[in-house]
């Protein structure tokens, strides 16, 4: 297991490596930049999900989750790097705002798509909403040619 002394040693080593590479960074800066990098990777995963998954609802689901956490990670990383200056505080306000609004956009878009009549993927198991509100499940019966499955 990693204890606190080895963590400190790792952080010191990272600072020395950064100094050799021409950067003048503290431990907090390094942690912040790592958090930013993880957030950016989650953003990329969300975009890949947007391309690969089969229908509107699955795409919306993966993309909203990943991109929200990714952007929140970027904002938290900025807060860690900058500290409680005006940049850091504005970044965390922006992150919290995204955390509150991104699910609402996803909810509005998915309901709009269902009312609009965008069909669900043919592998869909159950559609309670279509059965209750729209007069029959909104599941497509045959696979289209241009679906990226």
């Amino acid at each position, binding site marked *: 297991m990693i204890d606190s002394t080895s963590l400190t040693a790792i952080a010191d080593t990272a600072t020395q490596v950064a100094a050799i590479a021409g950067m003048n960074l503290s431990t907090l800066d390094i942690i912040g930049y790592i958090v930013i990098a993880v957030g950016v990777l*989650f953003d990329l*995963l*969300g975009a*890949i*999900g947007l391309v*690969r*998954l*089969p*229908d509107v*609802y*699955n795409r*919306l*689901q*993966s993309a*909203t*989750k*990943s991109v*929200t*956490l990714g952007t929140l990670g970027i904002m938290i990383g900025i807060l860690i790097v900058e*500290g*409680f*200056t*005006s*940049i850091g*505080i*504005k970044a965390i*306000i922006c992150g919290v705002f995204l*955390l*509150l609004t*991104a*699910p*609402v956009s*996803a*909810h509005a878009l*998915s*309901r709009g798509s*269902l009312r609009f009549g965008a069909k*669900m*993927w043919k*592998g*869909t*198991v*159950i*559609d*309670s*909403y*279509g059965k*209750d*509100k729209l007069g029959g499940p909104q599941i497509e019966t045959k696979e289209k040619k241009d679906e990226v*499955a």
Partner: protein
Amino acid sequence: MRRIILCVLTYGFWLILTLPGGDRLVWIRHVTDWPIYIVGAVVAILAAVFFGGEFTHQPLSFLNPRRWLWAIVYIPVFMWHMLVANLDVAFRVLHPRCPVNPGIVKIHTDLKTDVAKAFLANSITLTPGTMTVDVDGDTLYIHWIDVVKDGTDIEANTKAIAAKFEKYLRRIFE
């Protein structure tokens, strides 16, 4: 009363947004910044006058420490579920065959107030494999990326999706 509290909150938010920039750790302002205070005060008063009716009906419950305590407990729980959700998405997206088994299921909630329901819906959207599609009274329609069994059992769905958040949200908002 509601309008006064809304005015104070709006003015505080304005002060945060207009923090002076630069490298200094500035919580102290210059005397020459006085137009900022005047404009902020005017806008805050106007906002309180026009939009005070839209504000919550029990503003004093903001001051209840027990609710804040449960909110602070809720944040790490929520962040943990969110991280699990993203690892789950990463697995499904990077898997060569994209293993999804989607469907829209119904769940039932006991929460009464609108704010609590809104937070429950937001939490469900950001946690593993679920997304709120519509709210209709006590019933929530959830798009679930990996439906267990055939998804017709409302009680089992509720237990799997919403139960882990409801116990916290009930203490925070009700």
